[in-house]
């Protein structure tokens, strides 16, 4: 076992943490890149964020069409969705890693975390409906 700062890290855990770190770096830059495109588009098209009227509703299905039409809103929504999806991606990767290492308890914990977030989504949709 390699003793590294702050956590006991064997080879498998070391690789898992490194993989998650890479995912988070790449994901953060992708998300921020999408938001950046959206903000630049917003500035170029003259949208005033503080007085453009009611906030546009979030419609996941419309994002691709908005992006194809080069609407800033589409890039902004996709960037924000990417931001929210990133921690979930981290949990999925961790869960798979724990499963591969036959650490069933932590794999189940990862699954439970995903279920709680799914519960949030289901409840929010239910309340909205």
């Amino acid at each position, binding site marked *: 076992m390699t003793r590294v700062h*702050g956590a006991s890290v064997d080879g498998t855990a070391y690789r898992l943490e490194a993989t998650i770190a890479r995912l988070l770096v790449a994901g953060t830059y992708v998300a921020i890149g999408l938001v950046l495109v959206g903000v630049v588009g917003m500035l170029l098209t003259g949208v005033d964020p503080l007085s453009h009227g009611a906030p546009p509703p979030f419609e996941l299905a419309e994002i691709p069409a908005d992006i194809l039409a080069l609407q800033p809103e589409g890039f902004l929504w996709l960037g924000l969705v990417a931001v929210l999806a990133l921690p979930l991606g981290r949990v999925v990767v961790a869960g798979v890693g724990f499963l591969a290492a036959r650490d069933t308890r932590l794999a189940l914990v990862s699954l439970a975390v995903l279920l709680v977030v799914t519960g*949030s989504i289901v409840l929010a949709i239910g309340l909205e409906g």
Partner: protein
Amino acid sequence: MIAGLVLLAGGAAVGLFGSLLGLGGGILLVPLLTLGFGRPLREAVAISLVSVIVTSSAGASVYLRTHVANLRLGMVLELFTACGALVGGLIAFSLPVPVLQGLFAALLGYVAISMLRGEPRKAGGAAPVDDALLPRDESPATTAVSTDVDRAASAPALQPAPTAFVATLGGPGYAVTRLGVGTVGAVFAGVVSALLGVGGGIVKVPLMNLAMGVPLKVATATSNMMIGITATSSAVIYLLRDEIDPYVAGPVALGVFAGASVGARVGNRVDTRLLRMLFVVVLLVTALQMGAKAVGL
């Protein structure tokens, strides 16, 4: 165009100062958006949650790569913070706005007093983005961790022996204790995060450090890593209930990310003592303003 740039600059200022002072963005962003830009409180909370996820993800990548964060402990605790955030996200829509304003005013006052006492990391260091965005690798952070770990290791072992599962959650030089207390506190941290749009480090860091025997640096890093899931659990509720305006959230999140990145790079060269005192004043004034709004003044 001007408004977009002003939002961007506001987010950058929050990211920069939050980074320099070791605070999460939420404690600064929510007052800026509500009192400064006149946005509704729930929208401000939602945008703040998005912003803290951005800084948390960037920070967690560094903490995981350098193995400062305790992934296993973080995963267990974030299950409970996520539950708390789910509950908090639902409560936020049933509580009257003045109550939320009053709670936020109390939080601001608490953080100001903690900063006055010189304990920002313990009190409000939700997202220590000064460590977060700049890959410093094994230098200052590791020294601090080693010191904490050594201290923890040399402390008298007064806590009860951990169970087999809890024993797997510790790290070099320290064992995790009182997991039950930790889980209850984690639920509370999740509720606070969802209600007020903060990372919840204000609860998690002292909880892990003081109650569970986790060295401060590890607790801070692990808390930072957990913020992503905690905030996402409630942010999706705000998103699906159309409380997020992408035209406001976009420039603010971008600004926070840019400001925090700059803060991480200049943090070591800036004397933050004066800044800290000024910020205590700003926080107290903001707490009074938010409190006044809460009671309808």
